């Protein structure tokens, strides 16, 4: 049976992306992932006041703007020579703002983006848009257990909103907060704000511990086969993030498929462009030298995403990459969280490299961050400085690397005549959803899809569950095409 299937758009993710795959005998043989929106942020930033990048780059993403606020602030701090001078209060408040955003993003991702692939909402609310139309045939939780999950979908809408409200105490507003600026932060950590923040945090921690993590376990028990689906490239990269006065919460590193750790070095990142709609002349460069010259009609290209690689290798980024990196580096809290969860599920370490492994890592990471935030709050010193004075240098270079909810994010700036001469951003989804590179190695999501058995071509749950488990920051379209048939004109649209 030969069929080509297209899914475009894949909804319930942030943004615009397309994926194309070749299917042979019910198994995916080849996959293509393609970003379908280009805005040109890096071009727009050229010639502007370097400090403005901190405000403007947040607008790359309304779901995780604070990750860009953090990365751009670190990048500008670096270029301005301020990195070692940032006050402890500012480091802590930046982390509290970013941590709040992690919590809202992870909760939103599981309940409002991913859960409708597992939970039968229409059975509870009726055939009501936007809960129909949808794929049919593989909703395995029913009755009261299903009704409870739908109830948690609604409850989680309130909790994620409260994460944003908590963030605004130090961030000013969300989305697109204003609290993180080059040199530090703008809000003083007065005692009234600290306690206001703490009790909002406690309500969210209660939800993570007693609802979010148990719901992940419940879904995992009903969909156990998804511990074996969507394995991917198994090479896990984290730049490291949450720069606290005492060091980083997330460690940097590259973990190989056999769980060997290699130290991370920024200069080993390159961006390939062979299959991207950009000029080939800039292919293979480190982002500190990279350019963004769009060529939307380029042959061989199928995506507006570039192909970031580490020492030429494909990597997966995100909560799974961070948790495994910390695990391998001996973080006792992370080790306990992962070991106890795997024991509860009766699963081995290899189950982490899967659709459910990614969801579980994300939920456990939410707990890790939320619990740590209590300590960060208590480390604040109301009377001490929050910002260091700064001046735009005549020339300068800077890099800002941190962790976003979806994985590592990096910003690179070159300043000339006190203006931004070049600005480059690599988002985590650029890694995860990247197209093939110059050596034709498929990207991380492409690799996770390849080899997947698709049970029902009219309702290819497997593919959208794999894609969404990465929490991509783009809208996707997935195309399947049968290798043996080779008839591109004949395809079934789902």
């Amino acid at each position, binding site marked *: 049976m030969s069929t080509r299937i297209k899914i*475009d758009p894949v909804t319930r993710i942030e943004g615009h992306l397309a994926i194309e795959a070749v299917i042979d005998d019910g198994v995916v043989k080849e996959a293509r992932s393609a970003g379908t929106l280009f805005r040109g942020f890096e071009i727009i930033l050229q010639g502007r006041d370097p400090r403005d990048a901190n405000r403007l780059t947040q607008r790359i993403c309304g*779901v995780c703007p604070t990750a860009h606020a953090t990365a751009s602030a670190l990048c500008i701090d670096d270029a301005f020579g301020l990195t070692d001078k940032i006050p402890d209060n500012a480091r802590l408040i930046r982390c509290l703002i970013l941590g709040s955003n992690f919590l809202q993003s992870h909760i939103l991702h599981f309940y409002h983006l991913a859960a409708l692939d597992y939970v039968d909402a229409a059975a509870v609310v009726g055939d009501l848009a936007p809960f129909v139309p949808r794929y049919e045939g593989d909703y395995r939780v029913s009755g009261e257990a299903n009704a409870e999950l739908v109830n948690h979908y609604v409850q989680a809408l309130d909790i994620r909103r409260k994460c944003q409200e908590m963030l605004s105490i130090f961030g000013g507003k969300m989305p697109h907060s204003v609290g993180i600026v080059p040199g530090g*932060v703008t809000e003083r950590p007065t005692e009234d704000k600290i306690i206001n923040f703490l009790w909002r945090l406690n309500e969210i921690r209660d939800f993570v511990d007693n609802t979010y993590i148990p719901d992940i376990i419940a879904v995992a028990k009903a969909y156990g086969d998804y511990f074996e689906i969507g394995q991917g490239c198994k090479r896990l990269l984290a730049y490291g993030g949450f720069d606290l006065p005492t060091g980083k919460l997330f460690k940097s590193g590259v973990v190989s498929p056999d769980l060997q750790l290699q130290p991370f070095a920024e200069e080993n990142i390159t961006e390939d462009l062979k299959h991207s709609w950009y000029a080939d002349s800039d292919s293979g460069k480190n982002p500190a030298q990279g350019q963004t010259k769009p060529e939307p009609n380029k042959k061989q290209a199928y995506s507006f995403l570039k192909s970031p690689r580490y020492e030429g290798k494909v990597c997966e980024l995100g909560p799974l990459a961070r948790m495994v990196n910390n695990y391998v580096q001996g973080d006792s809290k992370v080790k306990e969280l992962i070991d106890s969860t795997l024991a509860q599920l009766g699963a081995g370490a290899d189950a982490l490299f899967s659709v459910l492994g990614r969801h579980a890592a994300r939920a456990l990471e939410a707990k890790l961050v939320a619990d740590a935030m209590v300590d960060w709050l208590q480390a604040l010193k109301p009377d001490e400085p929050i910002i260091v004075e700064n001046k735009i240098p005549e020339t300068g270079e800077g890099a800002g690397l941190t962790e976003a909810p979806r994985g590592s994010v990096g910003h690179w700036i070159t300043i000339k005549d006190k203006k931004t001469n070049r600005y480059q951003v690599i988002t985590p989804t650029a890694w995860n959803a990247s197209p093939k590179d110059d050596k034709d190695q498929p990207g991380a999501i492409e690799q996770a899809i390849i080899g997947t058995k698709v049970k029902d071509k009219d309702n290819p749950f497997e593919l959208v569950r794999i894609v969404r488990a990465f929490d991509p920051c783009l809208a996707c379209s997935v195309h399947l095409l049968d290798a043996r048939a080779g008839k591109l004109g004949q395809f079934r649209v789902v």
Partner: protein
Amino acid sequence: MYMKGRKVATKEYPVIWLQGAGCTGCSVSILNAVSPRIQNLLLDELVPGQRLNMLFHATIMAGQGEPVIEVLKDTEKNRKGGYVLVVEGAIPTAQGGAYGSIGEIDGRHVTVQQSVEELGRSALLTIALGTCSAYGGIPAAKPNPTLCKSVKAVFDEKAIETPVVNLPGCPPHPEWFTGTISVILFSGAEALDLDNLGRPKLFYGQLIHENCPRRADFDKGKFAEKLGDAGCLYKLGCKGHYTYADCPLRQWNNGLNWCVKAGSPCLGCVEPEFPDGTSPIYEKITFEDLK
């Protein structure tokens, strides 16, 4: 008022929500609505006997692929003049719209531009949600690499006469959206009183500067010299003296905070000049500079 004379008959308002060159921040902001909450917007009668019906929203809808693109086609064909189109994000028009696609049908990309034009033509009214959609915003900032345009500009070029309500902001406050919906449900779309930039005066009628809690500092000449200082933020680039929005009164995120209260200059994010005319963000900009 260009809304006049458009009487609304239906009690259920189907909503098609398109995302163009944007960041989903407007959608996330609406998720932050407090009263009504997002679940009320999706599931409940907002006022007795009247409700929204969110037929298409890519970030929250269960379905995917061509069936959801069919929803767009079906709505355009069978609910002519009966649905509300919400557009979030600017409309990339370079290269025939190639820089933005919302999906595929019959093996062909459906561009953002094509969707906004087709669905806009048959809509009851269009809400341009957020500064990108209302005026072009950041994607249309110099050098505007993808030739991004506002909804109104695209409509004007194609002689589409569907009324446009602009709800700018980067992002807009959720109550500017729920409040606009509320005017439509309680009093009819024709009751929306818009300023000359297409914004409801109910939300964009007063200067930030008029209601700013740091106004007394301005009047006394007490200016912050660096971020983190007390005092008026004018010298640090605050754009509140030419920005029309009710942020100081309404405040953000359940009334907890807002930009100037948090020690940040107003970015002027609801104005058509944002971001080119409102930057450098941390530099003082006088009325002379704007001319």
